[in-house]
């Protein structure tokens, strides 16, 4: 979903109720850049309130949460039902990735505070750092996979490793989507327009990123408890 960074403050109250119609009926056909940036093929309508985008994101996050929670309950059940489970020692690469992800959330918040202070340079810097840390997270996860491969632990080796790979891969896929959002906001033509009154895209991307962060904490704790500790 392409998101513009133009302001989405409501249009000034239109004086153009003219041309008949019911009392108080608003005319949508007035000028203004009220649509989502698309010319031609799109219908005129009042701009969506900022809240709408956040509602949509929260709903998406609810769906993603159900996705991972059903995997988590499968994990708990599978671990308990048969005697073939071997606890997987968590490779230390995973700890690194967790730290990197948490750090990236912190730097993302610094970037957001820079927007509030209209500090474009600061925003660019911290947003860029966060994006790199985001890629670092994925890199650290791949490193953790490499560590496991070195111990000859692959997807089908044991149910515990199956879950490990499935959890980390699915989470990383969602992180990639988040990275696309981060890169999009960091793109020069987009980040030039970010300001205290035009911050929908960075705010949305940050919320999603924090969600992925929180989700990762939950998954990490689950894997840690179920994995019998650090290897």
């Amino acid at each position, binding site marked *: 979903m392409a998101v513009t960074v133009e*302001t989405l403050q409501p249009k000034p109250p239109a004086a153009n109720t003219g041309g008949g119609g019911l009392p108080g009926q608003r005319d949508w056909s007035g000028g203004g850049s009220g649509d989502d940036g698309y010319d031609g093929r799109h219908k005129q*309508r009042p701009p969506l309130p900022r809240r709408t985008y956040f509602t949509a994101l929260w*709903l998406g996050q609810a*769906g993603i949460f159900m996705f991972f929670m059903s995997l988590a309950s499968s994990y708990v059940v599978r671990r308990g039902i048969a005697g073939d489970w071997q606890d997987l020692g968590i490779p230390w690469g995973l700890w690194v990735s967790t730290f990197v992800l948490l750090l990236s959330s912190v730097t993302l918040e610094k970037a957001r505070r820079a927007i509030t202070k209209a500090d474009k340079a600061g925003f660019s810097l911290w947003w860029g750092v966060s994006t790199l840390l985001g890629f670092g997270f994925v890199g650290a996860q791949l490193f953790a996979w490499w560590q496991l491969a070195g111990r000859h632990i692959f997807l089908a080796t044991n149910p515990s490793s199956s879950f490990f790979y499935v959890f980390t891969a699915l989470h990383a896929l969602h992180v990639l989507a988040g990275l696309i959002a981060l890169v999009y906001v960091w793109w020069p033509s987009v980040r030039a327009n970010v300001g205290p*009154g035009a911050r929908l895209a960075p705010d949305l991307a940050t919320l999603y990123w924090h969600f992925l962060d929180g989700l990762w904490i939950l998954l990490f704790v689950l894997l840690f408890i179920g994995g019998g500790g650090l290897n």
Partner: protein
Amino acid sequence: MSSGAVGVDEEHEVHVHTPPTSFIWKYVFSTDHKVIGIQYYTLGLISMFVGVTLSLLFRWHLSHPAGEGVKPFLEGNQYLQYLTMHGTILVFMVLTTAPLGGFGNYVLPIQIGAVDMAFPRLNMLSFWITFASWVTLMAAFFVPGGAPSAGWTGYPPLSAVPEAVPEGATGMNWGQSLWVLSIALFCIASLVGAINFIVTTLDLRARGMTLMRMPLSVWAWFLTAIIALLSFAVLMIGGLLLLLDRHLGTSFFLPNDVWMAGIQGVGKEWSHKGGSPILYQHLFWFFGHPEVYIAILPSMGIVSHIIANFARKPIFGYKAMVYAMAAIGFLGFIVWGHHMFQSGMSPYLAIAFSVLTMTIGVPSAIKTFNWLGTIWKGDLKFTAAMLFSLGFVSLFVSGGISGIFLGQSAPDIYFHDTYFVVAHFHLIMGVASLFGIVAGTYYWFPKMMGRCMNETLGKLHFWGTFIGVYMIFMPMHFIGLSGHPRRYSGFEFDFLNTPEMHISHTLITHAAIFTAAMQIIFVGNMLWSLVAGKKATENPWEGTSLEWTMASPPPWDNFGGKEPVVHHGAYEYSVPGAAKDYVMQTDPPEAVPANAHQPH
């Protein structure tokens, strides 16, 4: 993309918003919710044709059993393959696309006074992902091994082991994998679509359109979308883990003691251990039960809307109807175990699921009595839409009552996996939901297409279909009670190979052919009316909701640039003291005299 300009352009760059003119942007990659709705509906209609044809094929097989010198009509695994595809196509590609994606997309924005969905491009994306899912599913017929044969539920171990059929036989090869992939794509499309529905209903209502003034059809689509959002994700996990078991050697669902064709591990090193098919069942049915409410709730909303219109009375107990739908949706998430009573669960767990299942009968009964209350002493107009809506109520009761029997864990020991179950879900989900779709078609066709359908043909269609479906599914209760198992393609057992069973099957098959033939009248009526039907006025049914304030068919931007303002609820029919027997939602406040309503 504008550069952060605030408010109105001072410049003279007029943003011209005209509808697209080229075919591809107008009808194929359109972001207009009306076009997308029709696309979903058409997909549903085509799938309906495929799914029903498949059922006729295996029904023919059942009523012409193999015998002395008589070859079976379907060979090998074809019976199970057609059965699997019939169920999958109808549940996903018809009952989930047409009522929600089809009518919901078309009508919801209009009924709340919006110009389009909140995210039109996302809407287009969800249709095309659904289409990709459809193509993937249909492709299963044409790959090596043919269509899958593990049922619409796709239970492991059968669905998780590609070698589960002997060499050269069909039904368990690429087709099963494509089935899983198709469902995964469908899940993604549904999740994205659900977000759009919910956000649109919450944020894009016109002024005056409070939640409690929304038509019940909107409530139904809104609640259905919430259910879809929370349940499809779980199915995706079930499908993903199944795919991993099938192709990458994992053991989520595969235990270590599977016997196939008499050879443990199919004659080779069996690497799986410790997985549980029951885990899959939990994941599947946690989705599967809410799915049946996704299939029925939109039809309930449509039927409520239509019955009020043609009884010329407000819906009886509007708020109760809303709360009942919400209760059904909520309770639907905590009863999934009633699909698994025979899986070896503790009887105490079974009691819990059983009691909760019984509880769903309460809001369902509230709705049923409220429909009756709406009809009671109404000025009834028996249009085709009304007939199908009343038919819905009848089928909902018939199908629902057998659910009470099935929902009790002890009797279910006997009923499980018999035709009694088949009768139950076909009446309440298959046919009732379909009646809602058909009722909606007769009701909104004039609005969508600008032409009326032929009412006489519609009535004929109704009576033929109504009698037909009862003739198909009523006998199934009895053969189920006699112990006839589901999914059996032959009659090798003595208790099945009786004249009564064969006569029943023949009767059911003939009824099925007759009912299918009746649908030709419906499709013929639609196609003929598209070109030669009487031109429809703005409000042929004298309805109150917002879709009846606009031209038929509606202009591209629905409301011609002016936001509608709503002053009344959705069911102001036969208001005492009002000028006509209906007050539209956008009529001035004075249209309803001050003392016309009881305060509430």
